[in-house]
């Protein structure tokens, strides 16, 4: 047990350690806290009002328990999806496991160590999503002491089942994936397959939500006490058992359901440990060897193409991103999830009705603004620019002894981020064409967002230059506990959110050409300012100071 505890502590420390001085970090936290405090007050009061109004609407029919069902079902689905991503990253993409393998640890101990950080994130998410809704429901229903005791205990249990299920599925998959010789490529394929799996689940859920059939069923279900709860949680016992525990908190039946959920949770945990003991190390210990290919003078000749330095450097950047599983997932695949979900929602939820009702009511100007702000916000969350320098890690110094012009290096790094953003922009382009946004509006948006993408890439790269994280031992650490991503997002999203809002509301400028000039002008001014800041840094030999 001591070993497990030691391992958990060490692994957590490795993920969050920062050898630099910590005083400057405190300021980041203070500023974030000041910024997030009013937001959290607004969020909690919104949830509270929402739950109270739904409760008062459902209570006369005896169907208020469905709120608990939906709450548990949605938190389990959310945590399951999050677990998929974090298990894949922590268990398989992080190479730090290699350094622990020579030590006399059991596979389950390594697993628990590796699971610590994902669990931490799951609890934070559960706290944000579950706790406000749980307390609001308690205040609406006049919850008793047992209600709160059960509720808090359930909070502690919530992440275990979704995490265990996701981990078991992935461990099983990776056991076979890693038989392939090229471990990196296998990891990438498995990673993308997992994301596709998540999207597939989303599509299936939406396809099954047949609205006309549902109304028929609803009328029948409404006649029974808790009929809606039974319907919502019918296919997922943990959500049913949790909701019933709280709903029947005052009676012995509540205790019975609570014991059931404990049994289920312990079962999931045991299954996770057993499967881990069986499959985990076999999945991790793939041989990362390349295929030996016969070389020939002709092959070398084909490879020998003289290219400008900036192009050669940019290609190197892209190769590193696409060939490093963690970088690929963080920089490319995760950025695509947002737009893909929007496409799925639009295609399966609203169909033509959405186009006719909502999109049909928009003017050309509003089309451009809507497209711009959604795509720009997604681009500003991309971690490629904020890891431009940090990705190099301890080998950054190789950029210093090679005869590379710092301006060329900067340009190549920004260009690489800009090119990666093209994936997101392409998805938005498809989306815009799918919902039949007028072609000239799409074209104007394209020009604006391509410029916006350059700004987002420059700002992120600049922030990373100011505060790089080069001292990582594992690629995963690079993306943990970094606030510059939040700063980039707040700056870009905040500034252009306000500009978009003002342009949306103003009646003085009604044409899309008018607003596009303002947007482009603002973007160019920002790009100019960032360039000035870069020049100032370059004059002070910023590269040597990293």
């Amino acid at each position: 047990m001591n070993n497990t505890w030691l391992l958990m502590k060490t692994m957590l420390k490795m993920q969050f350690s920062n050898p630099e001085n910590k005083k400057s970090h405190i300021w980041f936290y203070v500023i974030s806290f000041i910024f997030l405090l009013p937001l959290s007050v607004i969020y909690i009061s919104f949830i509270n009002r929402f739950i109270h109004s739904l409760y008062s609407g459902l209570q006369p029919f005896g169907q208020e328990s469905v709120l608990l069902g939906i709450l548990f079902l949605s938190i389990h689905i959310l945590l399951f999806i999050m677990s998929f991503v974090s298990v894949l990253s922590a268990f398989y993409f992080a190479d730090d496991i290699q350094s622990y393998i020579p030590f006399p640890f059991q596979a389950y101990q390594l697993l628990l160590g590796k699971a610590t950080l994902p669990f931490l994130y799951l609890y934070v998410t559960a706290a944000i999503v579950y706790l406000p809704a749980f307390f609001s429901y308690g205040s609406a229903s006049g919850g008793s002491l047992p209600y709160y005791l059960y509720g808090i205990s359930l909070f502690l249990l919530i992440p275990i089942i979704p995490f265990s299920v996701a981990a078991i599925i992935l461990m099983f998959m990776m056991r076979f994936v890693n038989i392939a010789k090229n471990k990196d490529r296998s990891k990438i394929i498995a990673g993308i397959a997992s994301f596709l799996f998540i999207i597939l689940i989303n599509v299936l859920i939406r396809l099954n939500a047949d609205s006309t059939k549902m109304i028929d069923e609803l009328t029948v279900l409404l006649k029974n006490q808790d009929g809606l709860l039974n319907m919502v949680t019918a296919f997922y016992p943990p959500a049913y058992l949790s909701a019933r525990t709280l709903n029947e908190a005052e009676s012995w039946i509540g205790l019975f359901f609570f014991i059931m959920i404990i049994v289920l949770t312990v079962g999931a945990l045991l299954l996770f440990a057993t499967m881990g003991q069986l499959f985990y190390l076999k999945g991790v210990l793939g041989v990362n060897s390349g295929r030996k290919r016969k070389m020939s003078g002709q092959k070398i000749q084909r490879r020998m193409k003289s290219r400008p330095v900036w192009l050669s450097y940019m290609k190197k950047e892209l190769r590193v991103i696409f060939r490093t599983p963690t970088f690929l997932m963080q920089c490319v695949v995760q950025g695509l999830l947002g737009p893909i979900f929007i496409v799925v929602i639009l295609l399966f939820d609203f169909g033509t009705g959405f186009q006719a009702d909502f999109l049909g009511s928009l003017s050309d100007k509003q089309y451009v603004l809507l497209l711009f702000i959604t795509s720009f916000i997604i681009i500003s969350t991309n971690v490629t620019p904020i890891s431009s320098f940090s990705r190099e890690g301890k080998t950054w110094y190789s950029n210093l002894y090679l005869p590379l012009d710092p301006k060329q290096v900067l340009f190549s790094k920004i260009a690489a981020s800009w090119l990666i953003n093209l994936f997101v922009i392409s998805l938005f382009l498809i989306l815009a064409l799918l919902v039949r946004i007028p072609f000239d509006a799409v074209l104007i948006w394209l020009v604006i967002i391509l410029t916006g993408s350059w700004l987002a890439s420059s700002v992120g790269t600049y922030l990373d230059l100011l505060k790089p994280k080069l001292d990582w031992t594992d690629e995963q650490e690079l993306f943990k506990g970094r606030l510059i991503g939040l700063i980039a997002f707040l700056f870009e999203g905040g500034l252009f959110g306000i500009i978009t809002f003002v342009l949306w509301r103003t009646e003085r400028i009604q044409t899309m050409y008018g607003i596009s000039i303002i947007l482009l002008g603002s973007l160019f001014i920002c790009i100019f300012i960032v360039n000035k800041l870069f020049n100032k840094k370059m004059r002070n030999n910023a590269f040597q100071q990293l």
Partner: protein
Amino acid sequence: MIEINDVSKSFYGKHNAINRLNLVIPDGKIVGFLGPNGAGKSTTIKMMTGILPIDVGTIKLNGLDIEKQPLEAKKVFGLVPDQPDMFLRLKGIEYLNFIGNIFNVPSDIRKERIEYFTKQFSIYEALEDYIQTYSHGMRQKMIVTGVLIHDPAIWILDEPLTGLDPKSAYILKEMMRNHADKGNTVFFSSHGLEVVEQLCDAVAIINKGKLIFYGNMEELRAQYQSDQSLEKVFLELTSDE
């Protein structure tokens, strides 16, 4: 030629890592750079190659100031760092091509040199593999090849023989000798005293940031009791007393 003039370097404004270092490494010579761990060898090499800024003094490589003309100066030397774990996600051939592009080596010469040196170091067949899959020694050879393909006048090597198999170590030593014999400069740090003794025309010994000896083996022996081995002389020189 490498000229280090009155160079000092401190970290966090306190510790004097390098203290008024003066050293001239002439053309046509192999100079070994010795010193115990933490003596300032790597710091000196990092300043020579532009990785670290210099606090005081100047460093010139073939007359080019590394701080005032960094790009020009970096074109005249090739560095083999002590850690070859870099560019791991590139294939060997991609790395060499990348270096070729940076140093603007014409395609035909690039091809010729890649073929020649990778065959010499027995890494030719691994060119299409990712550097990540190479052993430490293979990575070291790849970095050395990267230096050789742009044929710089000055070679700066930080522990270049660590991890090399005997055949490759022998070839590299031969190459260093030939390079110096053509009138070029080779400067390398090492902990292997016998290699320094056998290969170098001169030796520079540094301790606690100060140069404590610079000259050839004969001068060293003459100064510190002639019949002692280099190892004994080195230990005596760098002892704390």
